[in-house]
């Protein structure tokens, strides 16, 4: 048996093959076959990933070079994969959750026509391929390739229903916002090349290279972080993610909740050695993360679109992860990525199941009382809500607790706000749960009649994810509960140096956990009373501001997009036409005008000809004899 590392290329290769087969054969493949290929390749990747994971666990990690991607002058960019704890963990998440979502999709998308169905799966496979490149890449360039690749797939999938112009705009917005981040990311890569001369992780994170980088580490890390804000929807580039809900729900689950958006976290975790060199950046990351978490949470309070609530929740949770990164708890961040992948995928798929049942209805004001008909969905959704709210022993609790604890160590105020955000999270999640599943049905009769539980292809992934959401946290049980329980930190330690251990005493830790759990439960109870018999009503005042997402989109339009567009229009309609082209044409016109004027010299009169000649002679003679030296 070969070493798993040597076969690591198989992991992205399977989805790529899947993409090619489905993409090229979309006219010829039947829907079931497409589904089987689409899911099968991911499953294959997942199996290889598991193998790799265990191999890595054995301590078998390293870099595999395939060929020279770019080699010119001093720059050498190999096409290489880096297999270590961090990437193998991500591989598992991506392929595992990805597989479940693929399976779910087979059923969710069954009403699409053959070709579009195939198109969907080919995109999805391509996405997985890109995401795998991203996490496996052995250097920044390969990472970047995956980084943009997932952006592309996100674009394609958001705009999957391409007839809808609205969706297309959302797709474009997502891509462009991502590109803004990508630019910063690229510049950071250039700076690394300029300083180190290499983009390989192994070279860049070597002690020698870090020495070279340290003078400009703040700016590099900041730029990387800007890149991450684009991909991971942080302030100021978060507004695309809620709009990205235009895509099919499984896509939202996979791309915009579980995997792609966590790329920023991955990247920063990958570069944790750089970030630990710069306190400034770390603080900024923490503050931005926290601010995003809070802002998104407040917006989520008043959203009525089931997927939008989840989207803002995702933004908020991502903010949490960045908070963790900012306070140096890289492991906690990665841990939260994992648990979040479970429960957020679960929630999204659950919402998908609801939407499926409601024939495409997404407005929770038109739902209610669905728990009776959608039992499995309701149950799993509830699990997801509990997990995200952070109630022990659900997975969310452990990861969130790790973050809160780290925040507390850093600064109690950070902790305070983070806790407040956690409460908001619990509140709006349960608002969503209650409004959707309890109370009376508020939709049309037709819808009511139509509501039904989803087929097993959809519910089985829900159940699996629900189980994962429940037990997923046990890989990171805090030391206070069980020594050696924090397996994930242990596992990641080759990549992310273990901190010396928490400074706070165990009692404080217990107290904090108790505090947060208690408050969360209180919040849920409050939400229950508030929303068990929800009736929609017009929002006013502050509520309206929240419903309109703090008017951030409008602000961006007013301050950036519109002026830029107007400026471009000015350039196009005025500057280009009258200045640039005007000058060129003006030269032509001047020649023409000059021609008309000079030709008047040719008056046809002999007398004036002679006069002009004599005058010229005069001038030339005067020049020659009296002016020229």
């Amino acid at each position: 048996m070969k070493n798993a590392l040597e076969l690591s290329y198989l992991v992205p290769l399977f989805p790529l093959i899947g993409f090619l087969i489905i993409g090229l054969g979309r006219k010829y493949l039947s829907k079931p076959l497409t589904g089987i290929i689409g899911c099968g390749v991911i499953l294959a990747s997942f199996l290889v990933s598991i193998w790799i994971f265990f191999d890595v666990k054995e301590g078998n990690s390293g870099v595999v070079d395939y060929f020279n991607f770019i080699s010119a002058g001093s720059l050498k960019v190999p096409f290489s994969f880096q297999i270590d704890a961090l990437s193998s963990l991500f591989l598992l998440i991506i392929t595992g959750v990805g597989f479940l979502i693929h399976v779910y999709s087979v059923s969710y998308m069954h009403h699409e026509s053959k070709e579009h169905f195939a198109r969907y799966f080919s995109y999805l496979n391509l996405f997985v391929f890109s995401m795998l490149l991203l996490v496996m890449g052995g250097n920044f360039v390969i990472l970047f390739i995956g980084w943009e690749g997932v952006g592309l797939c996100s674009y394609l999938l958001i705009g999957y229903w391409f007839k809808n112009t609205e969706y297309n705009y959302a797709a474009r917005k997502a891509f462009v916002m991502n590109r803004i981040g990508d630019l910063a990311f690229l510049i950071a890569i250039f700076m690394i090349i300029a300083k180190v001369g290499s983009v390989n992780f192994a070279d860049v994170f070597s002690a020698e290279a870090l020495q070279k980088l340290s003078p400009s580490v703040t700016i590099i890390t900041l730029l990387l972080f800007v890149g991450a804000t684009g991909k991971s929807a942080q302030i100021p580039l978060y507004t695309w993610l809620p709009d990205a809900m235009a895509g099919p729900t499984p896509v939202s689950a996979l791309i915009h909740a579980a995997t792609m958006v966590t790329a920023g976290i991955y990247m920063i975790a990958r570069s944790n050695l750089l970030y630990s060199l710069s306190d400034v950046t770390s603080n900024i990351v923490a503050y931005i993360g926290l601010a995003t978490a809070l802002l998104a949470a407040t917006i989520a309070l008043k959203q009525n679109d089931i997927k939008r609530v989840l989207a803002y929740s995702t933004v908020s949770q991502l903010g949490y992860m960045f908070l963790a990164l900012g306070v140096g708890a890289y492991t906690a961040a990665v841990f939260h990525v994992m648990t979040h992948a479970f429960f957020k995928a679960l929630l999204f798929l659950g919402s998908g199941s609801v939407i499926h049942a409601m024939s495409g209805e997404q407005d929770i004001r038109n739902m209610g009382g669905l728990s009776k008909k959608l039992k499995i969905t309701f149950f799993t959704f509830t699990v997801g809500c509990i997990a995200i709210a952070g109630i022990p022993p659900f997975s969310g609790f452990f990861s969130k607790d790790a973050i809160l604890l780290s925040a507390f160590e850093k600064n109690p105020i950070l902790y305070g706000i983070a806790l407040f955000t956690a409460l908001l999270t619990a509140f709006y999640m349960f608002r969503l749960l209650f409004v959707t599943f309890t109370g009376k049905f508020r939709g049309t009769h037709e819808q009511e009649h139509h509501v039904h539980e989803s087929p097993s292809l959809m519910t089985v992934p829900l159940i699996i994810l629900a189980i994962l959401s429940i037990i997923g946290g046990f890989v990171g049980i805090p030391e206070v509960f069980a020594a050696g329980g924090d397996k994930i930190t242990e596992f990641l330690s080759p990549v992310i140096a273990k901190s010396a251990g928490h400074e706070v005493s165990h009692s404080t830790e217990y107290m904090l956990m108790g505090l947060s759990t208690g408050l969360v439960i209180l919040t849920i109870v409050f939400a229950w009373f508030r929303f068990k018999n929800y009736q929609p009503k017009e929002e006013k005042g502050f509520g309206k501001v929240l419903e309109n997402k703090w008017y951030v989109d409008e602000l961006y339009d007013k301050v950036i997009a519109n002026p830029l567009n107007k400026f471009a229009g000015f350039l196009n309609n005025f500057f280009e036409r009258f200045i640039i082209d005007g000058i060129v044409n003006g030269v032509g016109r001047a020649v023409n005008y000059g021609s008309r004027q000079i030709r008047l010299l040719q008056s046809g009169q002999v007398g004036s000809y002679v006069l002009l000649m004599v005058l010229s002679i005069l001038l030339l003679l005067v020049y020659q004899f009296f002016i020229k030296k």
Partner: protein
Amino acid sequence: MNALIISAIMGVLMMFSGILLKRKSTIRGLALAGLLVTIILNVMEIYGVHLFRINVTGMMSFDRFSLFFNTIAMACTFVFFLLSAKEMEKVGVNYSDYFALIFFILSGIILSSSFSSLLILFLGIEIISIPLYILTGSDKRNLKSNEASLKYFLLGSFSTGLMLMGITLIYGNSGSFAIDAITNPETKPGVLLVAGLLLLMFSMAFKASAAPFHFWTPDVYDGAPTVFTSFMATIVKAAVFIAFIRLFYHAFGEIHNTWKFIIAIITALTLFIGNITAVFQQSVKRMLAYSSIAQAGFMLMAVLAINSIGSEGILLYTTAYCLSTIGLFAILVKMKDYTFEGFNGFAKHQPLLAGVAVIFLLSLAGIPLTAGFLAKFYMINAVINSGGFLWLVILAVLMAAISVYYYFRVIQAMYFKEGEAQVIEVSTSFKWVISLVAALVILLGVFPQLLFSWFYF
């Protein structure tokens, strides 16, 4: 010397042929044959065959340069005869006399390309000018022709006056008319010499239609019968340039610092006025008149450069320019409407003629692969190699770009616009000849050494 005498005799012969020969085609045949003989004898002279041994007392020198140019001039005249001699019938009744005058002009051309005394220069220029006054006015009942003739005559005599004053002042300074005895390199050029030189320059500039002495050119070229415009705008102008260069190279080459800048100014003005004014013309004939001024600006650069590249270049330039312009005029004569609109849709009706016209126009505009390009190239090269005057070169190329504007207007009319261009019947032989001329223009544009290898043997 062979050519000079034979062409003078041919002139006399043609004078009488009008009485003796009734058929115009015979007259034309005689002229063509005579010219061919003259050319052959001239070429033989290059190879050392002298029919006449005459002591010219140092007033003329038939060196390789002049003989070579004479061959070019006569060959171009031959082409001109082939293409346009038939059109001369339409001008007036004195068919044979026109040939006689042209042969006399050829004698004048030979004189002005081989003079070594200012007297011969003067005589040569006059022998060129006087028949031209007549040819210009030969369409007697055409008021434009009359007017052109009188204008040409008055202004031409005026410039003769200037030239004579110049020669006189030079004579006053040096006591000789021989061009190699005019300057004394050891002493600073005297005021009389400089003044004379300038007046001579102005009158030569007048003959070469260089600004600001160009005013006669458009009117005369426009008014004269088109066939004769074709002749005087090309071969005659070329001869004047050869005389110009010969004079300034041999007589004043040593004191070039005194006059170079003035020539540069004249060149610049010529380029500027010629090109700019041509832009707005509505008649192709008049446009070609201005274009000839513009081309003169380029040829003046050889005078400015006074180096071997320039002399070599002027030979190529005159060849290229003469062939292209003669060809273009030969087509123009066939047109019923001389305006640009008259050419609309020409390519559809006469694809061959339109094609060769394009080649001629491209050559005039100086587009590579045509002789006109290499000609301009030589001029620029000559000036740059003589040092300085980069501003003039840049001006020249900018003006060349402007020239593209008006030359291409014809191409646009012929190819890109719809219309019914009216053409007089053209014979097949005409088409053959003009195609050969066009081929020659291209050939010279790719392998100019065909011309020069012969020059250097």
